[in-house]
Each structure stands twice: as structure tokens, then as C-alpha cells.
């Protein structure tokens, strides 16, 4: 029913432009795998190579262990959900869903029954005779999924399927998609540039930038232990200090910056000494007294109330801007604007990381 996918050294060139550079990933059967990255980083290109609309310039793609080189889209056991859904506007819903069966010559009664069954699966029973324009965004989404499931693919490929929906609906559909994936057990490859979506839904995430895969890991690992500055910045906010590694021992290093010397975890810098230190705003503390280590004297600037947390903007003496987030438990005290306080952080929550892994 579901199949694994392996990309081995896959590259894709458009003329002289390399859209995907040396991608290596092994996706397990039944996994919910997301590719996360900013616009234009090559996510769609990867998906189109897996579905067969474009051939890789180099490298091998295996689906269920078999090399699919030369197979056309309709010969691969994949089903693609397009960025804009691509529902056929002139066919009623049930014909949309059963189109894949129609072109395989399945008779009408069987198709109709299959369409109804799938509509139940995606929680839209009885909507078969409606037209596409009668459905809301979320309903169209489910029809697109049902249409893809109708051909019983072993891999579903979804290209930013939620990007056209508004915020509330998007959150609702996250849970829905995840549930459908669990129910069917099909391998999902999901593409998004929304980090919240990727972290919330996936078993594993591959973060991409400029055609290269930066890190592949489960969501917690990605957020808590990013391998480089790009991943750290793309999946969340950071306070960043630039500086030099002084001494290093057992994964920790002391790092000298214009704001003082800090201790933090040391990432894979290669032979470089110059790097940046990343601390997430929610991992910082504000206090009136200096702590033993990793403390910076700051002047409190604007304070913005965000509902579930309070963002405190502050600046150091040399003018660098830092942010601290305080969880709003209902009784949190908010610092005064203009107050001078110490911002500190736990060495285990701060990382010294290289920049993104990009071509020279």
C-alpha cells in the first residue's frame, strides 16, 4: 500500500541554474515527511521529479526500492496534490474524484461507488453532485485529496496544499490532513514554507535553502538543535551574537563577542573560528541582578503584548537589538521601558552555528 522513497545524489538544472543540488534523503513507508524552505528553494522541483514531470539531471530516485527513471507521471505509484489543487472546474465533484478511474476504463457504477466511499473518508458524504465552485476552500482541499487517493497511490505528494486557505481554516486542515494520513497509511511528502505547519504535522522535516537540504530530523530536533544558522533562523526567532570561538571542550565552547564572552554548545564549524551564536527569545531571562555567566546588560525598549506571551525588545550598550519573550501566565510582571536589566541564558540552550550550507 505505501512505499518508501529514496533520493540519491539528485540534482536538477534549469539551463545553467541549479534548482536542486545533491539531495539525499530516505523517506520511510507510511511516513509523513515535509520539505520546508523559503520560496524558490527548490521544493516544488523535488516533488515534480518524484512525480515524474521532470527528470533529474543527475542522481537516482527510487520509489518502493525501484529506480523510476524514465517512468512517466501516470506510470508512477504517486499522486500529486497541486499547489492550487487543480480541481477540474467543469466536472462535478464525483467525476473529479473518479477521473483517475475513468481514464483507466472503470465503469460508471463502480466509479460512482468509489467516489462516495472516498467522500466519506474525507468527511464530505453526499457532496458528489456539487460543482467545484460550490465548495469552500477546505472542502476543495478534501476533494483534491480524495481524487488523489482514488487511484490508490502508495505515495501522496502535496505541494503547499493549505497555502490558499485563511489562517483558521489552515489550522483546522492540519489536523484533518494528519488524520487522513493516519487512516490511509499512505506515505505523505508534504511541501510548505510555513514552519508551524511543518513542525506540527510531520514525522520528519527536511529544511531546504537554495537547492540544498540543510537538515533532516524530527520537528523537535530541528527546532531545538538546528545544524546551522539558516535552519535556526528559518524555524524560529533568534538573538544573534557574532564572535570567535576561544576554547572548546566536550561539545561546549567559550565564545567571545563585543558583548562579552559566553558559553554555549558548539555546532559543526569545520575549521572555522568565526561564527554566530543563536539563542531563542523564549530561552532568555530578564533579571535585575547579573547571573554567573551569559549575562548582558540591556536597556528595555518597546514591550509588546502578544496575548499568550509578552515580547520585550531591548538594546545593549553597543546598540545591538535583542528580544526576550515572557510567557503570559496571567501574573507575569512586565519590565518598565527604559529600565536597565540583565538578559541571560542557559549555555545548554544556546548554540554556536555556521551559516547556511550553500554553494560558494
Amino acid at each position, binding site marked *: 500500500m505505501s512505499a518508501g522513497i529514496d533520493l540519491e545524489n539528485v540534482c536538477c538544472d534549469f539551463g545553467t541554474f541549479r534548482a536542486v543540488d545533491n539531495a539525499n534523503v530516505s523517506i520511510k513507508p507510511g511516513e509523513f515527511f515535509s520539505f520546508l524552505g523559503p520560496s524558490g528553494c527548490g521544493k516544488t522541483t523535488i516533488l515534480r521529479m518524484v512525480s515524474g514531470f521532470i527528470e533529474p539531471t543527475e542522481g537516482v530516485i527510487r520509489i518502493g526500492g525501484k529506480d523510476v527513471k524514465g517512468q512517466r507521471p501516470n506510470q508512477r505509484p504517486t499522486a*500529486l496534490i497541486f499547489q492550487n489543487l*487543480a480541481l477540474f472546474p467543469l466536472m462535478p465533484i464525483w467525476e473529479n474524484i473518479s477521473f483517475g478511474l475513468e481514464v483507466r476504463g472503470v465503469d460508471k457504477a463502480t466509479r460512482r461507488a468509489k467516489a462516495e466511499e472516498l467522500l466519506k473518508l474525507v468527511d464530505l458524504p453526499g457532496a458528489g453532485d456539487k460543482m467545484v465552485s460550490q465548495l469552500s476552500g477546505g472542502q476543495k482541499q478534501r476533494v483534491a485529496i480524495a481524487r488523489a487517493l482514488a487511484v490508490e497511490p502508495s505515495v501522496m505528494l502535496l505541494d503547499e496544499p493549505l497555502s490558499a486557505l485563511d489562517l483558521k481554516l489552515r489550522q483546522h486542515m492540519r489536523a484533518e490532513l494528519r488524520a487522513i494520513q493516519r487512516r490511509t497509511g499512505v506515505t505523505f511528502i508534504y511541501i510548505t514554507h510555513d514552519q508551524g505547519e511543518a513542525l506540527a504535522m510531520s514525522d520528519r522535516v527536511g529544511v531546504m535553502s537554495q537547492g540544498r537540504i540543510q537538515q533532516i530530523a524530527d520537528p523537535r530536533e530541528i527546532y531545538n538543535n538546528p545544524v546551522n544558522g539558516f535552519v535556526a533562523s528559518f524555524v524560529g526567532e533568534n538573538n544573534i551574537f557574532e564572535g570567535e570561538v576561544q576554547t572548546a571542550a566536550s561539545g561546549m565552547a567559550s565564545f567571545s563577542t563585543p558583548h562579552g564572552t559566553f558559553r554555549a554548545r558548539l555546532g559543526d564549524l569545520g575549521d572555522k573560528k568565526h561564527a554566530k551564536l543563536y539563542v531563542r527569545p523564549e530561552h532568555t531571562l530578564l533579571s535585575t541582578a547579573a547571573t554567573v555567566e551569559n549575562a548582558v546588560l540591556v536597556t528595555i525598549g518597546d514591550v509588546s503584548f502578544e496575548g499568550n506571551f509578552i515580547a520585550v525588545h531591548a538594546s545593549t550598550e553597543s546598540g545591538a537589538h535583542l528580544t526576550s519573550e515572557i510567557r503570559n501566565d496571567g501574573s507575569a510582571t512586565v519590565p518598565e521601558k527604559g529600565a536597565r536589566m540583565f538578559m541571560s541564558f542557559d549555555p545548554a540552550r544556546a548554540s554556536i552555528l555556521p551559516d547556511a550550507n550553500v554553494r560558494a
Partner: protein
Amino acid sequence: MHKFRQNLAHLYTVLFVLYLLTPLVVMSGAAFNDSKLPSIVPWKGWTLMWFGEMISDQRMMLAFANTLWVAVAVAGISIIVGTASAILINSVSGRARTALYGMMISTILIPGVVIGISTMIMWTKLGGALFGPEGKPWPFIPGLHLSILGQVSYIAAMVMLLVLARLQSFDAGLEEAALDLGASHAQVMRRILLPHLYPAIGAGGAVAFFQSIENFNVTQFTRGGADTLTVYVFSKVRSGITPTINALAFLLICVTLVLAIIYEVNRRRRARIEAARQAEARRAEEALL
């Protein structure tokens, strides 16, 4: 001041519509005037006589039949050629596209006289070269088939433009989706692309049909001895006219009006259905949240 200008604009529009329609009314009115000359002044009383004479005018009826089959043929060929060209143009890009598009568009601008003479000369000369000057077989002799080819040469471009405009609103992703679901190329064409293009193809067919009916220049130079309605009316206007032409004009205008009204009613009905569907989609969206 603003109000004044607005009223002026309304007035101008009314005058413009009157300017366009009055000549047609005058022409239709003359069909009912009991006068040997086609005019509405002086009014000599009502009559339906000219309609009777029109029906018994054998040449006119023959010309009418000719016009119809020529128009159907032109519409049919133009639809096929025009649609294929639109799809082709839509799939190529860069310099090839500019060149092809320019060539197709320029056929609309070539004077009909040029199209008529060049079509006539090419086919008769080709016949002469193949079979000698005497006894050239069909299609190398003048006749309405040459008129059809000449008319298609520029009417196809009009169909192409209409279909191309519609293609621009076509989401090519639908074709990929269909291919991804396992459809063959022919199935993609028949089930996905053509249904989307039907409205434009229909409009193109109507335009081609009416353009063919009204064509004079190309037909005049290629028709040989055969008449079409336009050519016949032209010869009648130049020689002795009777108001039978007005009777014919009146009937044609009526047919046009009926078709226009049917089209408009149909359009409104569709707009209503579509609006209702979208309202339903909005309600569904709100219900979910």
C-alpha cells in the same frame, strides 16, 4: 459640474445608440412601404408584398443557400485551424511565438482585395501548371470553394484570438493533474482542455459564421459565377433595386435580434447559477469556522 458631465455622457450614449440603430430601422421600415423604391418617404401605405416577392426570387434563394453552406464550412474549418493555432501559440515562447503570432494577426489586416486576388491566382495558376490551361479540374477553377479558403485565411485568426484569450485563463496545472491521474494525451484534450475552450470555440464559430456571411471582397474575386447573399445584394443595389432587399434585411435583423436575446438570457441564467454556487461555498466556509 460633475453631475452635468455625467448627464452629458448619458445623452451622448443614447444618441450613439440611435445613430447605430436608426439606419437599420429605416431600412426595415422600407420593407413595408408600398412603393417601388426602397424608402420610407413618401409613405404609400403598408404592404407585405415585398416578402412574397422575396420568397419567389429564385436567385436570391439560391444565393441564400450558397451563403449558408459557405458560412458553415468557413466556421467549421476556422474553428479547427484557429483552435489548433491558439494551442500551439500558447505552448511556444520567445522569438518563435512573436513571429508566429505576428504572422497570424497580420492576416486580419491584409485587405480583402489582396486575399481574394491572391487566392484566385494561386489556385488557377497551380491548376494551369499541373493540367494545362484547358480543362482544369476542381478545385483549380474559380468557385465558392476558393471563397471558403480565402475567407478561412483571415477568419481563422479571429477564432485563434478568441480561443487564445480563453486559454490564458486556463490553468495548465489541470492538464498535469489529469496526466498524473493516468489520463492519456487524447483524454486530456477531450476531457480537460476542450471543455474549457468550448465557450470560446462557440463564440469563435459564431463570429466566423457571421464574418463569412458578410464577406464581400474575397468572395467577389473568387466566386466564379456563383452568388452569395452579399454579392447578390450588392448587384441588386447597383442595378435596379426593389424593396425585396429590405424585406430580406428585416428578416435577417429579426433573426439576429432573437439570437442576441437568447444569448443574453442564457448568460444571465448562468451568472445567477454561478453566483448561487459561490454563495453556497461562502456559507460552507463560515459554517466550518
